[in-house]
């Protein structure tokens, strides 16, 4: 019975992956990709990882989907005449590529089926060492305590992505969509309810992340989703320049994590040692702010954010 559930979710994933990549209509492909991300979130939940389910739904499906939609809209505006996608026009190589891809599937499948193991040495060491950190969530343990150099660099990657986008697009502040002058009353009511709730959910995820599913990434993605809503409804607008608040928010994650890690050297501790759960909360809060603002700016494709009309 449980195998049947696995089989149907897995089959759905394969079909959605195919539907998002085949077919002429690119917009439909993007929508299918978002649904694929949501089913992948179900997969993570099914496999037993609510942390990844939340991250996948918020970032993998939500933010990536929003980014793809905005890019699609921009490309449409630059060259409306460009055919949507000429892709399924048969290339002579298509059959060969299909054959090679199938061979690759077989090779990966065989190798991975043999590689399924009973968990690694590092995984067991993690479960033994976790109680000493005062954390209950092994993922937060790995991210903030055991392998935190990876996490510092990851927040730095986000910052680098923002800088790279700015280098490529220049200082732009074009707004994504002009909200109509007469806004429907429901929009204001919706934003009034959803925005505070998102902040509440984000703070809960941040707090819960040390012992339950949640953490800085899920919290940051929730805040970013709230920011996308504010951008789309004109409460926030894209600006051509990043003010001091936006700049501060962009670097606070990398800065707090990095400075904290270096400061521990002065106390005779190793680099990036974490003295207690209070430090975990401090670092995760800073990371949440940076992740949220960076994702919002990537979505807006702009240098900074400004207050909206309403």
């Amino acid at each position, binding site marked *: 019975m449980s*195998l049947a559930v696995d089989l149907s979710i897995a089959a759905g*994933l*394969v079909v959605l*992956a*195919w539907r998002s*990549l*085949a077919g002429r209509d*690119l917009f439909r*492909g993007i929508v299918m*990709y978002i649904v*694929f991300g949501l089913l992948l979130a179900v997969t993570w939940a099914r*496999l037993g*990882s609510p*942390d*990844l389910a939340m*991250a996948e739904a918020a*970032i*993998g499906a939500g933010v*990536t989907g929003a*980014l*793809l939609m905005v*890019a*699609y809209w*921009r*490309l449409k505006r*630059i*060259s409306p005449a*460009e055919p949507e996608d000429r*892709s399924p*026009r048969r290339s002579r*190589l*298509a059959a060969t*590529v299909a054959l090679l*891809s*199938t061979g*690759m*599937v077989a090779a*990966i*499948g065989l190798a991975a*089926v043999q590689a*399924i*193991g009973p*968990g690694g040495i*590092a*995984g*067991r060491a993690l479960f033994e060492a*976790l109680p000493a950190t005062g954390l209950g969530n*092994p993922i937060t343990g*790995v*991210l903030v305590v055991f*392998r935190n150099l990876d996490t510092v660099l*990851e927040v730095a*990657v*986000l910052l680098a*992505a923002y800088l790279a*986008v700015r280098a*490529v697009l220049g200082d732009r502040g074009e707004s994504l969509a002009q909200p109509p002058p007469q806004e429907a009353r429901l929009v204001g009511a919706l934003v009034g309810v959803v925005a505070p709730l998102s902040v509440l959910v984000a703070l809960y995820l941040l707090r819960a992340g040390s012992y339950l599913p949640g*953490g800085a990434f899920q919290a940051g993605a929730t805040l970013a989703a709230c920011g996308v809503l504010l951008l789309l409804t004109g409460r926030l607008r894209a600006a051509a320049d990043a003010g001091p608040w936006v700049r501060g928010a962009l670097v606070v994650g990398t800065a707090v994590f990095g400075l904290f890690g270096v400061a521990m050297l002065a106390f005779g501790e190793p680099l990036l040692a974490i003295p207690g759960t209070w430090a975990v909360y401090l670092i995760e809060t800073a990371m949440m702010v940076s992740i949220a603002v960076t994702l919002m700016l*990537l*979505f807006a494709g702009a240098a900074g954010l400004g207050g909206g009309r309403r």
Partner: protein
Amino acid sequence: MTSATVWVLAAASIFGVGLYALIVARHLLRQLIAVNVMGSAVFVLLVVAAGPIAGALDGIPLALVLTGIVVAVSATGFALALLVRLAEATGSISLEDDGEPDDR
């Protein structure tokens, strides 16, 4: 057939679908979706192949995948910016030359 086998085979198939589309598709946005699909397949492989420890999933691949999801969205955002600039500069949204022999 165990459920781990089901997931591994599904992930391998999704990777194959993504690889095929990456090579065959001409629109760059479509190719970018293909790369993302392949990435998702790798994430599933990573977690499932690691196997459980005492009934729970191994925390280390989970943390790696969480990092991977965020890095993937950063890279996607950058790639989309490059794509928009390419379209502005050339008016075309693919890397094809017009007179490519195997085109038709």
